[in-house]
């Protein structure tokens, strides 16, 4: 039996006439790793701020652990959210952050935090203002991991992290998640970096959810068909097309959906090449649709 941790319906947050989050419906199940993906300004941070009670929605319903998060201490003590642009008290150092964390997170593991500090080589006595972008991300990552909050948010954890640090985050998260399962929401626009971590993908663009699906399903969901333009066009006729590219007489079209065995054989007979679509490519297709669609429509017409 799975438990629902978050349930949102018609959730909306407006700034004047601009809807940062626009009537979204979704649910988060217990003990899964979610990727909250989308371009810059898509509404990822706003959505997380709503879920953590930092913002008040204009419309819609939101339940986190069974009730509205804002101002409910019993909900908030189960959450951990260090925003990418988190503000810290004046003259704070990472040391101050890690000293005060156990007062707020009942599952805080100080030893684990120490190990992570060493792994990331974080200078704990340097003022937060003086930290590099990567070191700042490391502070958020360490709090997120060591707090072991039942619902943990990582907001752009990879921002500025070097290759080694990214690898450390990846490893430690999976290790610790295996031992202490919890619900994790990873927001990022660096999709390839996290693709293998995710169990479920929520894709948001212009405040709306474009995709809310199991990551495995998403990975095999789309197919790219490449070959001679006329042959490709005929083959994809009637299928949901999410992207088109082409040079001269060659075309490469991405369709939403799998091909069955028969279709694959037919494609091979027609001399078409089939290729799986990576999560990143799929998302570029889905969210960059405006751009690609505009140029291709003219060609199609």
């Amino acid at each position, binding site marked *: 039996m*799975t438990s629902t941790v978050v349930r949102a319906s018609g959730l909306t947050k407006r700034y004047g006439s601009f809807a940062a989050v626009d009537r979204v419906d979704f649910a988060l199940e217990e003990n899964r790793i979610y990727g909250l993906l989308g371009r810059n300004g898509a509404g990822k941070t706003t959505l997380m701020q709503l879920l953590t009670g930092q913002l008040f929605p204009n419309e819609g319903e939101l339940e986190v652990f*069974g009730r509205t998060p804002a*101002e409910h201490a*019993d909900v*908030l003590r189960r959450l951990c959210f260090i925003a990418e642009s*988190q503000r810290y008290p004046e003259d704070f150092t990472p040391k*101050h952050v890690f000293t005060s964390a156990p007062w707020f997170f009942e599952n805080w593991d100080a030893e684990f935090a120490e190990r992570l500090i060493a792994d990331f080589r974080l200078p704990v006595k340097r003022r937060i203002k003086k930290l590099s972008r990567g070191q700042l991300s490391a502070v958020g990552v360490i709090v997120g991991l060591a707090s072991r909050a039942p619902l943990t948010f990582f907001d752009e954890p990879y921002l500025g992290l070097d290759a080694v640090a990214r690898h450390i985050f990846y490893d430690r998260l999976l290790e610790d998640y295996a031992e202490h399962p919890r619900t994790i929401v990873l927001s990022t626009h660096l999709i390839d970096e996290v693709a293998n971590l995710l169990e479920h993908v929520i894709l948001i663009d212009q405040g709306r959810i474009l995709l809310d699906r199991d990551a495995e399903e998403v990975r095999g969901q789309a197919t790219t068909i490449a070959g001679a333009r006329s042959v490709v066009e005929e083959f994809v006729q009637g299928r949901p097309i999410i992207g088109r590219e082409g040079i001269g007489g060659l075309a490469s079209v991405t369709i939403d959906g799998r091909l069955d065995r028969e279709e694959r054989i037919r494609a091979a007979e027609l001399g078409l090449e089939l290729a799986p679509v990576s999560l990143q490519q799929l998302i570029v297709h889905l969210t960059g649709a405006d751009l690609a669609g505009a140029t291709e429509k003219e060609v199609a017409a």
Partner: protein
Amino acid sequence: MTAVATATAERELGASRLRVGEIWRIVRLLAVNPTIFFGVPWMILGGAWAVTMVLALIMTGAGAPMEEAREGFRYSWAVLSPQWYLVVVGVQAVAYTFSFALGFGSTRRDFWLGMSVMFVLVSAEMAVAIATLVQLEQLTDGWWIGAGMFDALWYGQLGWGFDFLSTFVLQLLVLFVGASATTIYMRWRVRGMMVLLFGTVALVLVLVASLTFTGSWPAVWAWLAGLTSIGLILVGLAAAAVAAVAGFLVIRRATPR
């Protein structure tokens, strides 16, 4: 079959509305870097004291009549020097620490209550220390060289108790005014600050106009002159309380930056 994981908790059912742990941790968070509330005010005060001492030494060296000098020191504002800094501390508590505390899962309510406890503690600490230093300064006859810093303005006239109360109230007022004005920004951003600014100016103008046209100024002056020292302290305390309550109401719907 899915179920909803609820937080109608174990511990919440029997717990009282006043969550002592949740409020106290905010006090600790504000004090985790003790320089802000305790270090800097004393550095400012210490600096002002050092300057006063040097001034007194120069005056003695120049052969100035020390009786008159003592009188001159009464007009020194050095004892109030940390006040300006503490307005900023009040502002920063809400501008920075509030945003941080929300990220750590505090409620707005618990943050404000914890911050208020911190303000009371800091004000009491400053008040005890300053009132005691006034006594010491009098006892040592100006730190043995006739310097005067604490025994100035209204201090040193009505005893330790009055010095304590007046410092305590002034400190609270300064901290809460800084903090509650910032809650306006945290809730309504720049537009809120503009409304606050112009609103305050308009209110003052209306007040001045109505007092002038009704010819009530003499009555106002009479009321002010009639206020006892304790009356003044009570007015200050009331103002601090208004700022504290207003800030609480505003911050309940404020959003972090």
